[in-house]
């Protein structure tokens, strides 16, 4: 596949040359501030929360007027994960690692008689009646593994209940374990603030977005800002955190809203993604195509286009679908992709 030829240097130079990048609407900033106050963060301190939120906001920005990581509250997703084992019983029934299915309650049951969606919705399996999140139980030793990922190898190496040779294999690094996430965040967020102070005299969240972007460009290993020679140096903890934070921010944007981010599923709408679709699914039953003996046939599907006819007795003929462009799709999308891929 062709490497994308999007020039980070050009993009950032433009942002700096044009002064501050498009400022966020004031109401969004205010909303974020109020969210922070009411966040009930479980792991982050208030300062860390603000720094993490500001970093996320540049990883998937909303300068284009469409929701990004800040509006999705990716920071809440990250905080819930880092504090997965610290949730009070009033907030979750299990450590917050895997949400419990099957249904979110966002999608209706199909209507096999009329075709299409019914007006009946299942209750959410992901929250109980009191709004408490429900997660899958961590069976066996799984809690140990997730604690080690969050808190570090001592959870295993200092646990006398575990076999000595296993503890030794972890201690010697024979079984690889990534740097523990909680301390990675603690040190990394502080380092980003340090860099911002040196570069622009403020906490990361308070310096102009152009400076934030320049710092992130360094942290991500991208090209440094040309010309001025004032590119800030990035402390090691910030550089170590960056790829993890970027991945977690994107997860927080596009995961099920029940994980704390992707608020109101706004990022799914941005991506034109249906998200979880059960129990409706993508095939909408068409009673006109029902087989007498086998129950409702699967036929008309809004996303697929118009189907041909299924013949139950003349043989199982392949259901043929007529191609119709997706009405939601931007007709210029192909051309845009070609440009982004550097093909045109």
């Amino acid at each position, binding site marked *: 596949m062709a490497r994308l030829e999007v020039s980070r240097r050009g993009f950032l130079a433009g942002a700096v040359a044009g002064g501050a990048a498009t400022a966020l609407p004031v109401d969004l900033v205010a909303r974020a501030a109020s969210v922070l106050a009411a966040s009930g963060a479980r792991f982050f301190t208030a300062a860390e929360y603000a720094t993490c939120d500001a970093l996320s906001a540049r990883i998937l920005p909303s300068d284009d007027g469409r929701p990004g990581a800040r509006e999705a509250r990716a920071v809440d997703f990250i905080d819930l994960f880092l504090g997965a084992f610290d949730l009070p019983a009033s907030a979750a029934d299990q450590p917050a690692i895997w949400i419990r299915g099957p*249904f979110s309650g966002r999608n209706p049951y199909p209507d096999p008689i009329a075709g299409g969606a019914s007006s009946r919705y299942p209750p959410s399996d992901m929250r109980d009646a009191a709004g408490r999140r429900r997660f899958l139980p961590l069976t066996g030793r799984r809690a140990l593994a997730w604690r080690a990922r969050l808190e570090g190898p001592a959870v295993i190496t200092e646990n006398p209940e575990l076999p000595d040779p296993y503890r030794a294999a972890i201690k010697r690094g024979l079984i690889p374990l990534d740097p523990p996430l909680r301390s990675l965040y603690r040190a990394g967020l502080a380092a980003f603030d340090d860099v911002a102070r040196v570069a622009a005299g403020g906490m990361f969240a308070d310096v102009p977005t152009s400076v934030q972007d320049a710092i992130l460009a360094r942290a991500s290993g991208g090209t440094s800002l040309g010309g001025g020679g004032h590119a800030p140096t990035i402390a090691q903890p910030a550089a170590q955190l960056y790829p993890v934070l970027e991945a977690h921010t994107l*997860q927080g944007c596009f995961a099920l809203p029940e994980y704390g981010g992707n608020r109101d599923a706004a990022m799914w709408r941005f991506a034109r993604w249906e998200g979880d679709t059960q129990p409706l699914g993508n*095939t909408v039953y068409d009673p006109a195509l029902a087989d007498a003996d086998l129950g409702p046939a699967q036929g008309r599907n809004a996303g*697929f286009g118009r189907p041909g006819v299924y013949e139950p007795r003349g043989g199982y003929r392949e259901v043929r679908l007529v191609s119709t462009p997706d009405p939601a799709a931007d007709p210029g999308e192909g051309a845009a992709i070609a440009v982004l891929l550097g093909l045109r």
Partner: protein
Amino acid sequence: MGRRGAVAAGATVAAAAVTAVAAARRGTGRPRAVVVGSGAAGATVARVLARSGLYDVLVLEKGPLLHPGLGGDIASVGNMFAGDELAYEIRPSPFAQDPLLEPRSFRPTAKSGMRTFVGEVNNLPTLVGGATAHYDAKARRLREVDFLTNSLLGGGPDSPAIAGTTYTDWPMRYAHLEPFYAVMEELVGVQGPAYRDGSGAIVNPNPLESPRSTPFAMPPGVAMYSNLVLADAARRLGLHPAPVPTAVNSRPYRGRPACNDCAFCLDFGCPIAAKGGGIWLLHDALRTGRVELRSESTVVRLEVAGGSRAGGLGHVEAVTYIDAEGSRQTETADLVVLACTPIEAVRLALRSGIGAPPDERDPAARRPAAGDPGGLLGRNLMFHRQTVVYGVFDQDLHPHRGRTSTHTIDDLAGSGPSPRDFDASIPRGGILELGGNANPIFEAMAMTQVAHGAALKRILAVSPFRRHLNTLTMQGEDMPQLTNAVDLDPEIVDVLGEPVPRITYSPHRHEVEAANRYTPRLQELLGAVGGTGSAYPELHALEIGVNVPDQVPNDKHIMGTHRMALDSEHGVCTPYGRMWAFDNLYCAGGGLFPTAPGYNPTLTIWALSYWVAAAIVSGLGATGHRTAAQVDAGAATLTRVIAQLDADTMIARRLGRTGVADAAPMITPAT
């Protein structure tokens, strides 16, 4: 052979428990079978043994039970799976073997040192019901030629036709396994295109499959758009795309609903129980009342009896496992079936004093050892060599809407399906799976390789991967080699203190050359989408690329390691799955495969598991058939088990109720 280490320290309490349980068991008057693993193989074996009425069955599964109500009314069996990309594709998943707790090690060859990687190597989901939770349920049969390719190429039992391999024929033929394919297609619920016409003849729209005696249980479900555009191009190139036989309901079937194409199939558990799999066979088994399931129970040792039985055979008298609370337990067994993946079966055997690891200085040499006279245990580990070619298209293909893949093409699997069509000059590749999808978190994280910030967001808005990607995946046949092996890592243990499996694997020249040869065909196919003569003229590929396979194998199609053969010189197991050196130790699953033809292995695992279980209940398993003629006669006996135990199936009606073979004990189907 010597009893292995006896029951470990601290087992006094466990031994008392065993005595109590054994006493309770005696009341039934039935021998007890212990089945290790509850996936496609274990659930099938447990079901047949229990339905025969001849055994009480204890199923030990190391994974958790995620289907509350299993074994009760099918309409009330629940599950906890969601359309949740984060849980099932990004984080170590709820049913994955956690690589921190149960790592495996890997190295390309014995010369690479002790290991080159530790972590996730060929991990399969570990949960009650097994890996059929995560698959996209392609249920393909092998073809007639796949059972005897080595002969067709000019080889013989001692002369693999391909240098540097242990290529061989299967001990049975397609015709022997055909009724077992048929019954499992119906029990699991497989949709597919073959149907019965007005005259009663089977019509198969896929001309490259071998003959079948029954139609599919259900017609094909809705085709995916991303697959139709590829199928259209393939037809214009003279290929034969066809709806892929899939163990997913296209109609309400046996108490479970029809699939609604929710977009979360491969990697995901089915939230509405439309996906067929081991879990529903296990449900059937539990309904007999003769099966006990213990989840979160990891078998760590087979307790091999001292002395030897008639014919000098070994005997397993108990299994030791670690239960959900971490306590060591031992259970007596009259019969043991290993149904726990080819890798774990070898690990368990080696830990129990059966077989020997390869000699580090001469890894191609066999090492005959106690329990493994042929010196083949753990050898001939096979995967499928995946060749992946993808294209980014200018039109939105909504490739996620569907069942991951709804069509396959068999033209690249080698020459035609019948021995009459065999052409040695055509390289053996494998089936070509059309379609495949990417979800939004994956796309966003992948795109950080090329862009960040606002640039990343612009890319995600148009979504080159998630909305515009179409993929071709060829599952290429992998050659068996003595040097590709499973043994125990010399240093690393898992969270239970047990040595972890070590995988030593390098591809053979054959599959690399086949992949190289077919890659341009795949690129040609993607390039032929759209344009003049197409039903989709407005479409075309903007970019076509090839995915290079990872160095560390993460293939889920795992085969070999305890292959079947007509004698113990050529295989670890008999044609009926019993280890040649034991009177009561059987294997089921992909480990029995002598070769790895390029078709998804699960349906063949199912068919072979029914075959093995039928051999056990008919008494045939105890005999050592050593000629093709004996196996041919034996197959008729085994087929009668289908007629008796699953009389309500299409295949049983076709076979007729032919009664019990003289040598076979009375079998009472459960109600």
